[in-house]
């Protein structure tokens, strides 16, 4: 017979087991968000293409043509896409993840499930968006007849890294947002600042002075984008190992503290949301 004890602090005991038990709800929430996203209009899908395509063009013109930043012999649009795709994935995942609990407040206050499911499934949606927009990269590579190196097989690794980093930050934001609603005003601002200190539209090693390089690499997305360029551009781009180490370090830290903090405050979500 199924037995359950409810006591203060008791939720801890079966947390991970419950998470596994509720995996179907996790699929369903991701499925719902995707369905809604791609159902409303054709524009929904077109948008997933159009947004990165237009941004790519603008960035190429502004940074490549006007500012004439160095491209190390790589077509500028490819260089931009390698930075922009992971950045857009990271920033939308983080924002969606951060908003997810508040968006699903009726679920949180009316049914039980491990709350971790909600932010996790929202990141999945951003991942699918990312895959759709990533097909632009394939088109551009074809257009320039640019054959990526064999490193391309490592790409999923870096996508995973971006995913984990976004999830880590998103967890903190989501938990914060439940209590401090106007945190949602701060997130777009963070994303905007992030865009400038992240090598989205330029090759940072050509731009950032050597002595500041390590400081610059403290931004976890530097490692991810570095990795992306290494995967696609191959030999022309050497992996900057310190940035990789820092990013992995950040990600582990963010995820563990994110989950820790989230779980600490999650039992009061239903009361304050």
């Amino acid at each position: 017979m199924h037995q359950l004890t409810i006591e203060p602090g008791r939720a801890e005991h079966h947390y991970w087991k419950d998470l596994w038990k509720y995996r179907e709800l996790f699929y369903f929430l991701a499925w719902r968000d995707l369905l809604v996203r791609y159902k409303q209009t054709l524009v929904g899908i077109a948008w997933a293409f159009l947004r990165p395509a237009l941004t790519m063009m603008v960035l190429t013109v502004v940074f490549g043509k006007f500012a004439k930043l160095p491209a190390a012999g790589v077509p500028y649009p490819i260089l931009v896409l390698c930075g922009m795709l992971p950045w857009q994935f990271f920033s939308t995942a983080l924002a969606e993840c951060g908003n997810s609990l508040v968006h699903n407040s009726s679920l949180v206050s009316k049914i039980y499930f491990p709350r971790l499911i909600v932010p996790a499934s929202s990141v999945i949606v951003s991942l699918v968006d990312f895959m759709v927009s990533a097909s632009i990269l394939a088109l551009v590579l074809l257009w320039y007849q640019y054959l990526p190196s064999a490193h391309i097989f490592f790409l999923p690794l870096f996508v995973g890294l971006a995913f984990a980093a976004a999830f880590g930050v998103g967890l903190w934001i989501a938990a914060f947002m439940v209590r401090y609603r106007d945190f949602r005003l701060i997130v777009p601002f963070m994303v905007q600042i992030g865009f400038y200190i992240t090598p989205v539209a330029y090759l940072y090693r050509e731009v950032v002075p050597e002595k500041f390089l390590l400081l610059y690499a403290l931004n976890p997305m530097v490692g991810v984008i570095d990795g992306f360029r290494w995967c696609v551009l191959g030999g022309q781009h050497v992996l900057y190992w310190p940035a990789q180490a820092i990013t992995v370090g950040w990600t582990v830290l963010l995820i563990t503290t994110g989950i820790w903090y989230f779980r600490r405050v999650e039992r009061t979500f239903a009361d304050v949301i």
Partner: protein
Amino acid sequence: MDHSVITVENLSKRYIIGHQRAPTDGVRHVIEAAVRSPFRWLRSRNQEKKAQREEFWALNDVSFDVKRGEVVGLIGGNGAGKSTILKILSRITEPTKGRIQLEGRSASLLEVGTGFHPELTGRENIFLNGAILGMSKEEIKRKFDEIVAFSEIEKFLDTPVKRYSSGMYVRLAFAVAAHLDPDILIVDEVLAVGDVTFQKKCLGKMQEAQARSRTVLFVSHNLSAVEAFCTRGIVLSKGRVVFDGPTKPAIQHYLDSLRGTRPPSYGDVIDLCAFGSRPDRYPPQLRTLRLYDETGRPLGGNLSAGAGMKATIHVELEQPAANVNAEISFLTLDGDRVCTASSAYEKCRDESRLSGSVVFRCEIPSLPLVAGDYKLNVGLYIGQTEADLVEDAARVAVSWSDYYGTGVAPMHGVFLLNNRWAVATAADMVLA
């Protein structure tokens, strides 16, 4: 059979109120204050916390246990703590003290259509809602046809639910919930919506569950549903159990306590702001209710059967809105709605926007009720949604009158029916 499936021991729940709602609590303020003078901020933060944090015990040392197959009605006024108990039992929120032991799988239905997404079709929502209520995909697939048949919306299965009428929406939502098959079913106030026939159908479905010795914990404002359906009643007041026993005495206890806490108002001018019975989520927009007899003199809480009455409802709208309607419903003291007068039934004006102070005047030419006391609920609707509600705002004692002109007084039912009869012997009838 007399095995306890729910054991609740010394359950208490404390809410901290006021704190997170304080205007200075936004992040911007916190950052601003912290940046300006960090030390003062740290110090003041601790003090503020103490000052602003107000503790509130929504449940206070509640204990009871429920045996397998029992159908228990939780009864109590607004804010008594009924929903809080159900939320703790459903693990949505943690208790502050105490312990609960549950045996068997439980499913909770705290709201109709939780997780329904307006953009998705009926079919998609059945799967989504099923998963949310704890059914597995296989289970939903297996019961899918049954759910659809129960909801009576076959034709609209592939229409987004945003196009559904509210009746269809509720039917679909109930249909999914009605096919949950847990050992313990926890239901909160969900029968308040939906039309009466459908409610009956749902109760029937739940009774089926009971027949299979399911345990049900049931909250409803509808005391006759509680009486018909429950085998036991637990009365809560201010977070404590004040009565636990058979349903009928439980309901009686609750009704008596209502009389005790606030003498029912048989007055003429009723200040609707003062009512604690208003659901917390509503800002008080209904302000005053005035009752008159048919000649325009104050009613005085008395009305002879079949006489007319007039009422005015003064409303202060929070925001300008179109399609604003007021209603007065008459209920028996058991909480059964007898009839409703609503400005929505009678297009008294075009659907223009109203704002600020609004007065609704209502005239009821005749109120043919059987002698007895009746409660009046006053409600305010904006569009289809309830914007304010004051339950038991006033009482009217309907006194006997010679309604039929024959000196005979009906004692049964609630309604005086106009009727004509002819009686004759069968032989006369044929001749005529």
